[in-house]
């Protein structure tokens, strides 16, 4: 897809509440929006015929025919009819040279399933014909009169509100209903307008909860479909998964009864089928089925406590960055965009904390798999309404006032090493004698990207935690020096003598200059034993 102008669907402006939670999913060439009481459909496949109200509409799957004379015919496979029975949506196709439905010829139904009344619908009662796309309310199909026996068939009802939605095995699945927070609702397979439960067939709509027999069930916070095989229900304090279809031999099983999920967007899959989610004690990784493992427990043991987030005021978004082979975890305060983010590198299994400008706080993220590699990237939706992507070519962050592709906000980046014990004997000190820093880029210019200058700070202390506190605070270093990049330069460009003595040291390398980036090839530290700790 090339660069283009984003266009709003007619009738959609003002129809959803962006201050409220919203989820959406794709199904049957439509997009279903789940935004509380705003349940909407963006339809990209059907043609719409507007008529005066029908007494009895055609059923889903019935064929409408319009004889336009001269051998021209227009046909429509009925997909959906609105509640007022004034709008008929369906897939249109033509024969004999016809190119569209008209308002000047009658339309008849084959009454295959339901009896349309009146049949035919005379031309005088056909108002307009509208091509795709369309925007309309997501409701259940109106009652129809069955041709076989004249009985009335009903299609149930949607929940009053829902905030979670997904597609599983061709079924639309809703949850997050404040009136029934433990409940999930599955529509009929491949027919998202039928929610008449207990239909007693393999595609029957099903509603239910996740619990042992007789219990109400846990509050559902996330719907996580995995192919057509499993649907994971992320709940407040437990995790469940459905295997197969509930109306045809499926089952619901426990994934973990001690771990819950943070929210509806706090999960993602990597390229190997592993599910990552932000749970009770941090970042978890699991297979489906499997046993979730907290992978942040060692490196970030107090992740949840340190972030101190509340699902009612924060949003945690996770996405798999296929290009950079890592998981982007974005923790954003909904009110002002204050954010704390982590990039989890799948190769090194390390966490890289990141903080961005408040306006760049992420509310949503998705990997856009465009054919054009220039547009194939992880996209993040930000607080200021812009959609951004990570661009290695820029050395500064993009601000709201910046044009696309331009960055003016300095990136303050750093890495820390330590605490490092300076003497074999923990009761004695050591003395740093020299430091040599080889930055990336080889020689100046050349084929490799040149690093910019790097600031080196050394912190010393008599105990490990003392050094750690100084490192975290970043103030009062024992030694500080800017090493000139790139590569290994002669003289003091890359190496210098320094006098820093202590039982423990920590080293910080950083750069916070706008329009600069840096990388390190080697850090060589030389030291000698010193006397007892003073």
């Amino acid at each position, binding site marked *: 897809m090339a660069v283009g102008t984003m266009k709003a669907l007619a009738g959609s402006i003002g129809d959803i509440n962006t201050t409220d939670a919203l989820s959406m999913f794709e199904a049957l060439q439509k997009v279903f929006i789940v935004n509380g009481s705003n349940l909407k459909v963006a339809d990209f496949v059907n043609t719409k015929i507007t008529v005066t109200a029908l007494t009895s509409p055609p059923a889903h799957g019935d064929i409408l025919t319009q004889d336009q004379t001269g051998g021209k015919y227009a046909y429509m496979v009925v997909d959906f009819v609105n509640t007022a029975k004034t709008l008929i949506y369906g897939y249109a196709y033509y024969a004999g040279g016809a190119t569209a439905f008209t308002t000047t010829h009658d339309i008849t139904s084959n009454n295959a399933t339901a009896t349309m009344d009146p049949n035919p619908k005379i031309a005088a009662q056909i108002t307009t014909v509208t091509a795709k796309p369309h925007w309309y309310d997501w409701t259940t199909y109106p009652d129809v009169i069955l041709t076989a026996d004249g009985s009335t068939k009903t299609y149930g009802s949607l929940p009053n509100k829902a905030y979670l939605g997904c597609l599983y095995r061709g079924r639309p699945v809703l949850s997050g209903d404040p009136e029934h927070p433990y409940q999930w609702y599955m529509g009929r397979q491949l027919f998202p307008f039928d929610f008449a439960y*207990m239909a007693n067939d393999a595609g029957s709509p099903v509603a239910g909860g996740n*619990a042992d027999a*007789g219990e*109400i069930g846990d509050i559902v916070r996330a719907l996580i479909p995995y192919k057509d095989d499993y649907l994971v229900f992320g709940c407040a304090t437990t995790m469940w998964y459905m295997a197969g279809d509930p109306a045809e031999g499926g089952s619901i099983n426990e994934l973990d009864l001690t771990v819950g999920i943070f929210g509806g967007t706090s999960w993602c899959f990597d390229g190997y089928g592993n599910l990552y989610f932000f749970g009770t004690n941090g970042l978890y990784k699991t297979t489906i089925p499997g046993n979730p493992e907290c992978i942040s427990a060692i490196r970030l043991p107090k992740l949840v406590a340190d972030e101190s987030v509340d699902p009612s005021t924060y949003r945690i978004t996770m996405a798999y960055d296929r290009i950079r082979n890592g998981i982007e975890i974005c923790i954003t305060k909904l009110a002002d965009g204050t954010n704390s983010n982590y990039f989890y590198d799948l190769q090194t299994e390390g966490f890289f904390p990141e903080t961005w400008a408040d306006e760049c706080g992420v509310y949503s993220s998705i990997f856009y798999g465009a054919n054009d590699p220039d547009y194939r990237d992880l996209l993040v939706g930000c607080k200021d309404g812009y959609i951004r992507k990570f661009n290695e070519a820029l050395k500064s962050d993009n601000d709201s006032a910046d044009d696309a592709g331009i960055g003016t906000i300095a990136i303050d980046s750093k890495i820390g090493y330590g605490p490092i014990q300076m003497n074999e004997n923990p009761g004695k000190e050591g003395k740093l004698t020299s430091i040599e820093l080889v930055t990336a880029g080889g020689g100046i210019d050349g084929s490799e990207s040149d690093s910019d200058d790097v600031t080196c700070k050394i912190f010393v202390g008599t105990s490990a935690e003392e050094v750690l506190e100084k490192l975290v605070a970043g103030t009062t270093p024992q030694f500080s020096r800017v090493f000139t990049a790139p590569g290994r330069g002669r003289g003091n460009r890359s190496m210098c003598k320094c006098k820093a003595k202590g039982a423990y040291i920590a080293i910080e390398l950083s750069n916070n200059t706008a329009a600069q980036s840096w990388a390190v090839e080697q850090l060589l530290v030389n030291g000698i034993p010193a006397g007892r700790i003073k």
Partner: protein
Amino acid sequence: MAYLTGGAASRTPLLGPEFRSVQPFTRTISTKSGRGGSPVQTIGVDPAAMSALQRAIAYYKEGGGYGKGVEAALRRAETKAVASGTQGLVSAGLAGTTMIGGLGKKFQEEVGMPARARVEETRAQALANLETLKAQIIQGATEADRQRAFQRWQIESQRLRPSMMSVSPRPSLTKAALSERDTSGGSGASFGGAGSSYSDELGSYKSGFSPIAAAAQAEKRRRLA
């Protein structure tokens, strides 16, 4: 003496087996027993048999005893099926879903309704068979009755044939009748010929002349008329 009596609905079968009435009826043929005859004849169906047939029909009709056990059996089977299905859903973790609510309906659609349909089909077939049997019995009885009546007529005909053959006066009187006719221009009226005092219809007679023959002649004249 033999009398021929009958009610308004009776017709003598003496001229042949051409019945004018198809209604079963009772009449007295002879006061004395004749060949193959009996004092009173009644049509066909044994009341005991008909009663049994009616009871069978009543059994299969709505409200009869047929099919009562089926409903009870279905209720019990539904209870067991729903319980078993519930156990299965609990094992599958689907106890908290609408699948449990659909178990009873599923049983009715897959077991209950077909079973009831079979019961009704059997009921209809049985009733049809019984009604057909009843019709056959009645028809058979009717035909048997007619056959018996015909046979009785035949028997009577056979029995009375010698008398019927003496429609003409005995030879000993013929001559006298003829001579009377010849001499008086009459017809041997004194001997039962035309103009005689004897009635053309059934009535009194002089000896030597059979009233049956006279009645036969009267019938013949009526038909010709």
